């Protein structure tokens, strides 16, 4: 009997209805003074609901004209879990002759509890009205000009912006000039520039070759020297080559060795290639690269 009595007492506590649907509620408003006609007044309402309770967005005031002097320009709701941030932006259109206290009207926010049945009581939270003062912009006795009442003048048309067009022109000019230059290089319009990379290209090709590819190694170096000379270069033409390219005279010994070695390789039978020979050719190429680069 005693247990039954306790159960009866606990029964109302187990019911689904909650009298306070909101666990946290705050209205953030700016300063309540110093506004003039046409000013926008933001109002932020923070609501944290209990679990299972959600805000009914349609209960918020609708965007548009609230009354003859007050507009609601913006209504934004941000939800994160059970927390709702409601941002309202009002605009005042009232011309007081002196400083006047006005009020943003209060309203009631309603909540849904799970799947609300029509007969269930709607949960709600009232948002209080907020008072502020509005000041006039002009004196009571009107200032006069030669034309009559003093008015602010028309807004003159601004000149058109051309910054975007300048940016576009600069960017397109840069891209076009660079592309044209690269294409010219590829089509051989810069022979001097091409000459400056002859041994660089040769070194790149030599990098992957071994002593078994000696024929290819020699051909690569011959090709670079021929291109630099403008015609095929042979041992007996070296003195002419030095006259045209005096900077190569400093490695004449190595060049002569290279031509002798090449002659022996191509025209003597039974020559055995060794790794130091390959290294010596690579060194020669490296020296030539330094000369063409201007660092030797």
């Amino acid at each position, binding site marked *: 009997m005693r247990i039954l009595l306790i159960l009866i007492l606990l029964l109302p506590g187990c019911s689904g209805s909650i009298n306070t649907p909101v666990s946290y509620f705050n209205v953030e408003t700016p300063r309540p003074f110093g506004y003039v006609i046409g000013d926008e007044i933001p109002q932020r309402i923070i609501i944290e609901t209990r679990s299972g309770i959600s805000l009914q967005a349609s209960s918020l005031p609708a965007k548009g004209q609230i009354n003859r*002097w007050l507009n609601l320009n913006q209504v934004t709701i941000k939800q994160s879990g059970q927390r709702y941030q409601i941002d309202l932006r009002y605009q005042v259109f009232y011309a007081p002759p002196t400083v006047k206290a006005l009020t943003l009207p209060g309203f009631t926010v309603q909540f849904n509890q799970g799947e609300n049945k029509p007969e269930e009581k709607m949960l709600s939270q009232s948002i209080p009205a907020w008072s502020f003062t509005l000041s006039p912009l002009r004196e*009571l006795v009107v200032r006069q000009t030669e034309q*009559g009442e003093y008015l602010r003048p028309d807004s003159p048309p601004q000149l058109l912006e051309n910054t975007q067009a300048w940016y576009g022109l600069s960017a397109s000019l840069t891209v076009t000039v660079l592309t044209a230059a690269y294409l010219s290089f590829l089509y051989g319009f810069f022979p001097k520039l091409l000459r400056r990379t002859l041994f660089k290209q040769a070194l790149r090709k030599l990098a992957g070759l071994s002593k078994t590819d000696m024929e290819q190694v020699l051909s690569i170096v011959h090709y670079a020297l021929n291109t630099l000379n403008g015609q095929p270069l042979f041992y007996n033409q070296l003195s002419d080559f030095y006259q045209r390219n005096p900077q190569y005279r400093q490695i004449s010994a190595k060049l002569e060795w290279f031509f002798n070695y090449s002659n022996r390789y191509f025209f003597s039978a039974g020559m055995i290639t060794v790794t130091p020979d390959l290294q010596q050719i690579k060194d020669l190429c490296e020296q030539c690269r330094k000369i063409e680069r201007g660092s030797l």
Partner: protein
Amino acid sequence: MIRRIRHITLWAVLLVGLLTILYSVESLYSTHHDNQLIQQLTTGQDVVVNQVITGKPELRLARAFYFKQKHRYEEALSTLSLIMDKGDKAFQAKARYNLGNLYLEQALQQVKTMNMNAALPLLGLAKQAYRQSLALDSSNWDSKYNLEVAMRLLPEMDSIIMPDDDGPINQKSQLWTTVPGFPRGLP
């Protein structure tokens, strides 16, 4: 194959670059020309109508500005009405502010000649234009000031009673007059 693709791509980039250069140069020339027309109109010289009709909305705004300076209100109104929904928010706010000025200036002229029947609708239109302008750009002080001028001339009829104000018994004697006019101070 890759070399061929690279060449085709390079030529395509060059072509696109050249076309963009042409477009940018044309755009710069057109902007320069329009700016010259705007400067001409704001300094009180008219321009050929065709150049305005085919031009940007800013040109029409400049022409409306010119008409207003010359007190050719009807032409200014028809020019402004064509650009109300053109341009960005700042431009629309400016066009509406100038439209409000156009109505308000005409209303003031009607008030001066005591033609109240003509002044009242013009004042209503001016207030509407200023309100729309402020809704688009609430930082325009000129618009706020002129709206207050218009509202003083033709106050709203809703009286706002605050708890601190006197009760509604005394309200009858404090209602705004609907006849446009400003308090002129002491005699």
